């Protein structure tokens, strides 16, 4: 079978020359040999491939091919030795005969150079230069070398140039010519020849002595110039620097220099240095792109499309969260006529470079000086240089708050260790941070991040992801401590932002977790008591942080939308019972409005809350034109919470911002101070009302929305108990409300597209290679195609094998027949001989008998 198969494969091999040649159908075929497959129907568009055939011809062709291949193999089946033609390229038609000859010659040469015997160690070919051993040349000192160089100049200038500029090809040529010269029968003896040569060269040497000195001078000058330029052309990698330093070119080693130039990497053309305008424009373009993306998300368009589009990941992506989003190659630039190697202002320069430059103290300008505010401060890189170990690949992040505290840190750094293991639990982080000042804490967090950068080790990503959750918890702890450490939170927010940029998934789930926690507590309280108290400052801070970390203007966002619901719950479920609650509520309102500051979305709860706040700042009376909703009550113990009736307090009040600490816990205040707080709250409330009026002015039913606000503000003005500043504010709000356009255009539905009529156009069906197998996916079609192809090929192979076997059987049969015929012939011959003998013998006997 194996044999047959190989025979079959050979039979089908397209490259077999005889078959290919015989395959071409001759133009004038014998009409008796033509077989026509008549078609019963004409089908439009169907390709007919097998309508006409020449069965006799093709059978003869196949037979011929088999005779050439299979039969040969069959005949040689018992022979073990093979004749193999190992001439180079004998059967390769791609190579031209000339080329073939060349290659054969080269191979022959090569074979000659091969070692004759592996035991002969001294047979190494000696390397020569102009016929002299290279080993000898190396022993010469430079002066002799330069002399010989000068000596050679007259005679061998062509060879010399070839050596300098044309590589080593000329060398060989020279050698061979010399050999030829030696071998050839020359009239002059060798000595004569050499003497002549020497005389000639000495003469020339004398002639050019002076000229040479001039040239030397010029060369030196050129060298000097070159050295200056060299620094410009060379790439500024430390490797090349060190190499440059080591191989200091000797004054006249021009060759070496040329070689060096050849090997050294050329100064690659870098991008043109960008001007400031271009940089600004680039930044603007980036921001514009991001903004367009944001707008798209805000309107909630093409959500599905966005989901479908696969993210591009590089094949080299390690999925470690490390994204090199900027090309960190530096740009060549000049500053004050000197070259300046400037880091890109993205602040993502690798620290090793800046460090090296600092260490070298080179004249190439201070790289740190030109840094923008975003780039790392010099102090930081200093820290790192001491830090020592794994700092080379770290990303640097802008840390704006650090410079101011540089001096403090200078002192603190003395005690702090430089590497920190990432904390595995919240307690661990807390123990790391406890007892340190805020600056030290920040430093610790920063170092934890640096020591555990995801690009450094495999598990670091998970560690840092956890760190985000721990930091968030820590922030919550800071907020609930008494007094709340808001300054610390303020600094930590930056760290949280950085971590969030690195690990969006982990950060979003951590924020979601704390929000869920807060909502769960509140829900529990609502279920048991029907109402909920305002949560602690930590929840408010979490909500604010969520707004800082994630884009708040998205139509839907996995973190921001729940956060919005959380804010809404705070405003609707928590009754305002104390001044502290008012401060908290106003903070929530501010956060809420900040969330929608870009998208300008409408928040009914916020309006309700502001109405409530304005209500508790007015004396109770029968409500006119507005209705209070939960959690405010028209009457009750906190229904006049913000009412200030003290004239003196009103007079002495100055507008100022509310300290956020008050939301954490309000200190006991004197009556006047409390009144001042009330007025400040009222001022904030009015400012928020004003913001709402400007934001929602374009809403279609704006006047219905602000009707309660307007009624309350008019009441406020009528009461005249507020400080003049607030009265002025209310008045301006009222006028602004009036100014908003009052137009009511009747609503009209968008016209929907008419449903198209059913059309009877024919359905177009793609006819595939293997027939009409419709209704499946592309992969399925491909699979079916392959199956079909395999089946067809399999059938063909089987047929071929069968024919091969038939052929072989026929050959064997004919062999046997031949053998039999031979045997018969021989037997006949024998019988003939015997019969003749017998005849002769009988004749003899008869003769004898007769006698």
């Amino acid at each position, binding site marked *: 079978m194996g044999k047959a198969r190989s025979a079959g494969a050979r039979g089908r091999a397209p490259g077999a020359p005889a078959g290919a040649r015989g395959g071409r159908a001759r133009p004038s075929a014998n009409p008796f040999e033509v077989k026509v497959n008549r078609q019963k129907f004409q089908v439009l568009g169907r390709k007919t491939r097998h309508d006409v055939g020449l069965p006799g011809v093709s059978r003869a062709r196949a037979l011929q091919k088999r005779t050439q291949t299979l039969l040969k193999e069959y005949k040689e089946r018992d022979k073990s030795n093979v004749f193999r033609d190992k001439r180079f390229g004998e059967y390769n038609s791609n190579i031209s005969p000339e080329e073939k000859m060349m290659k054969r010659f080269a191979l022959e040469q090569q074979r000659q150079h091969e070692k004759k015997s592996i035991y002969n160690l001294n047979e190494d070919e000696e390397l020569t230069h102009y016929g002299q051993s290279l080993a000898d040349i190396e022993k010469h000192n430079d002066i002799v070398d330069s002399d010989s160089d000068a000596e050679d100049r007259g005679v061998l200038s062509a060879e010399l140039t070839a050596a300098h500029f044309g590589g080593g090809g000329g060398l060989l040529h020279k050698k061979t010519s010399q050999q030829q010269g030696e071998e050839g029968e020359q009239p002059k003896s060798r000595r004569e020849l050499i003497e002549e040569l020497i005389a000639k060269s000495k003469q020339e040497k004398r002639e050019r002595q002076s000229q040479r000195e001039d040239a030397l001078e010029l060369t030196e000058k050129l060298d000097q110039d070159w050295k200056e330029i060299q620094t410009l052309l060379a790439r500024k990698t430390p490797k090349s620097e060190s190499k440059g330093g080591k191989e200091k070119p000797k004054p006249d080693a021009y060759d070496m220099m040329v070689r060096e130039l050849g090997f050294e990497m050329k100064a690659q053309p870098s991008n043109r240095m960008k001007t400031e305008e271009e940089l600004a424009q680039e930044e603007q373009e980036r921001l514009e792109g991001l903004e367009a993306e*944001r707008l798209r998300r805000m309107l909630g368009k093409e959500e599905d499309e966005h989901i479908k589009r696969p993210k591009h990941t590089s094949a080299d992506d390690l999925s470690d969260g490390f994204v090199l989003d900027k090309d960190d190659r530096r740009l060549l630039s000049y500053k004050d006529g000197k070259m300046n190697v400037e880091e890109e202002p993205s602040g993502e320069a690798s620290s090793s470079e800046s460090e090296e430059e600092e260490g070298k103290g080179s004249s190439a300008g201070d790289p740190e000086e030109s840094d923008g505010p975003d780039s790392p401060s010099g102090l930081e890189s200093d820290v790192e240089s001491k830090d020592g170990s794994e700092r080379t690949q770290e990303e640097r992040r802008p840390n704006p708050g650090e410079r101011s505290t540089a001096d403090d840190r200078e002192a603190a750094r003395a005690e702090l260790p430089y590497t920190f293991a990432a904390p595995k639990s919240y307690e661990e982080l807390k123990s790391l941070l406890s007892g340190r000042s805020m600056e030290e804490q920040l430093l610790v967090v920063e170092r934890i991040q640096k020591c555990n950068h995801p690009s450094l080790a495999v598990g670091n990503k998970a560690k840092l992801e956890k760190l985000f959750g721990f930091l968030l918890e820590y922030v919550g702890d800071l907020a609930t401590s008494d007094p709340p450490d808001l300054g610390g939170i303020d600094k930590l927010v930056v760290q949280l*932002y950085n971590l969030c940029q690195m690990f*969006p998934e982990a950060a979003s789930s951590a924020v979601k977790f704390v929000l869920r926690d807060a909502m769960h507590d509140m829900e529990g309280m609502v279920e048991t008591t029907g109402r909920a108290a305002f949560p602690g400052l930590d929840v408010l801070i979490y909500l*604010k942080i969520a707004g800082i970390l994630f884009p708040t203007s998205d139509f839907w966002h996995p973190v921001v939308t729940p956060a919005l619901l959380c804010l809404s719950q705070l405003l609707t479920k928590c009754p305002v019972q104390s001044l502290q609650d008012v401060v908290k509520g*106003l*903070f929530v309102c501010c956060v809420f409005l*900040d969330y929608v500051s870009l998208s300008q*979305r409408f928040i009914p709860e916020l309006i309700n809350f502001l109405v409530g706040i304005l209500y508790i700042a007015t004396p109770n009376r029968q409500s006119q034109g507005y209705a209070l*909703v939960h959690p405010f009550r028209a009457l009750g113990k906190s229904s006049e919470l913000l009412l200030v009736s003290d004239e003196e307090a009103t007079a002495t009040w100055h507008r100022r911002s509310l300290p*956020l600490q008050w939301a954490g816990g309000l200190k006991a205040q004197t009556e006047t101070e409390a009144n001042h707080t009330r007025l400040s709250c009222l001022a904030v409330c009015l400012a928020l009302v004003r913001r709402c009026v400007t934001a929602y002015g374009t809403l279609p039913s704006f006047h219905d929305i602000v009707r309660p606000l307007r009624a309350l503000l008019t009441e406020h003005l009528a009461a005249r108990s507020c400080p003049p500043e607030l009265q002025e504010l209310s008045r301006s709000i009222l006028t602004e409300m009036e100014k908003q356009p009052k137009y009511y255009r009747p609503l009209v539905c968008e016209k929907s597209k008419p449903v198209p009529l059913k059309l009877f156009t024919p359905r177009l069906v793609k006819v595939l290679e293997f027939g009409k197998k419709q209704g499946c996916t592309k992969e399925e079609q491909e699979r079916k195609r392959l199956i079909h192809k395999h089946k067809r090929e399999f059938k063909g192979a089987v047929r071929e094998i069968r024919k091969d076997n038939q052929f072989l059987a026929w050959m064997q049969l004919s062999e046997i027949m031949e053998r039999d015929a031979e045997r018969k012939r021989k037997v006949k011959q024998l019988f003939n001989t015997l019969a003749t003998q017998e005849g002769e013998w009988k004749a003899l006997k008869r003769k004898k008998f007769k006698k």
Partner: protein
Amino acid sequence: MEREAGPGGARRALGRLVEAVLANRGKANAVFDILAVLQSEDREEIQEAVRACSRLFGALLARGELFVGQLPSEEMVMAGSRGATRKYRVWMRHRYHSCCNCLGELLARSSFQVKELALSTLMKFVQLEGEHPLEKPKWEGNYLFPHQLFKSVVGGLLSADEDHSLLLCQFREYLEHDDIRYHTMQAATDAVARATDGRPEVPLTFWNNAFTLLSSVSLPRQERAPSSFYVKHAELSDKWKVVHLREHRKAFQQMWLGFLKHQLPLRICKRVLVITHDSILPHLAQPSLMIDFLARACDLGGAVSLLALNGLFILIHKHNLEYPDFYRKLYGLLDPSVFHVKYRARFFHLADLFLSSSHLPAYLVAAFTKRLARLALTAPPEALLTVLPFICNLLRRHPACRVLVHRPRGPELDADPYDPREEDPAQSRALESSLWELQALQRHYHPEVSKAASAINQALSEAEVSIAPLLELTAFQIFERELEKKGPEPVPLEFIPARGLLGRRADLCAQHFTLS
């Protein structure tokens, strides 16, 4: 009688006494000892005594050793010269009465076990007394039931001093029996009448107990003759009132009407209204008699009115009641607080029910739609998710109201013609207006609300959206749902770098708050 220490000892002693009394009439005076223990303070002892009494009088009742008939006074019999057996029986019947009184008093004890035991003992007596009546039947097949004893039981249950809700729960299993239920209804009517008779203030506890008892009475839904009796009878007679469901209904109606005619506390009123449509109205003989109560409740305002409207609606719908101001009242109920109260789901369920008729006039539906839309401007998201589909459903049901969202070639106005303060929906000019409020809500911060409000931009689909699954939606559920949703990968991030907690200078937080 020697006292032995410990409950076990007491039990043994009481057991011996009971045996003695049952065995020998001469030892009858030991009954006094048993009854004395009934008034003890110790819980265990009382329980033992109650059990002893139960055994003793149970046996006596079963044996028929108590006097049957009109009971003469004790002194008279003792003084008289009738037979000793008769004297004994009369005397023993008196002891039985005092025992029942004691047990009735025990119902007011604080210990639940004692109360429960007393109740079950009394009910056992009721059963035995029913089987072996203590009065002579006036004619053959006369229905006899221990009315006096049972009234005292029900009276004890409807105490004005203590909340008996647990005990009433226990009592509920006796109410499974038709006769007990029937007599309970009668007894309760009496008890309520007695408790409120001539008294201006009735304590809340009484109303609570009464309501618990009344609400646990539930008549069978199907029309079938009552057949399960607590007191076993050899054969049932057709002449007995207790076997007719009609009579049960009458008693039920009397009971409830007697209860509801009083000035009920608001909370009880609410609880009554909650079950009105379901378990009271269908069982009344004449449901329209409830109109007085419902109309009164309807004027109270707030949640109570809404619940009363539910009852009224059933009366109007099923019993041909005329109540012209129904929709006006409903319209009056719509104020901003409906979105914030606990019964929001119920309110919208009912409103959906009330407005489900497609034969309502267009002006009415338009007024409701417009008012709901106006209120939606103050609603939290969870309520908006209910009310917006609700409004869309109204528009679908009443094609005449579609002008509210689609008025091509309408004149441009400079004020909304709708008058929100008008109480009469007919005068509110809602049909001339448009739902601009929904247009405003398309800019709502919550994506789902925004989408729901945008439904009016297109021509509304024909099929209504079922709001039933949306009714019970709470903010927390929405929150959880948002958290569960899978977002785009990766999570979009803010590209403006953080500067600090309060954000950039332009932010409101930074303007109005400081960190220190």
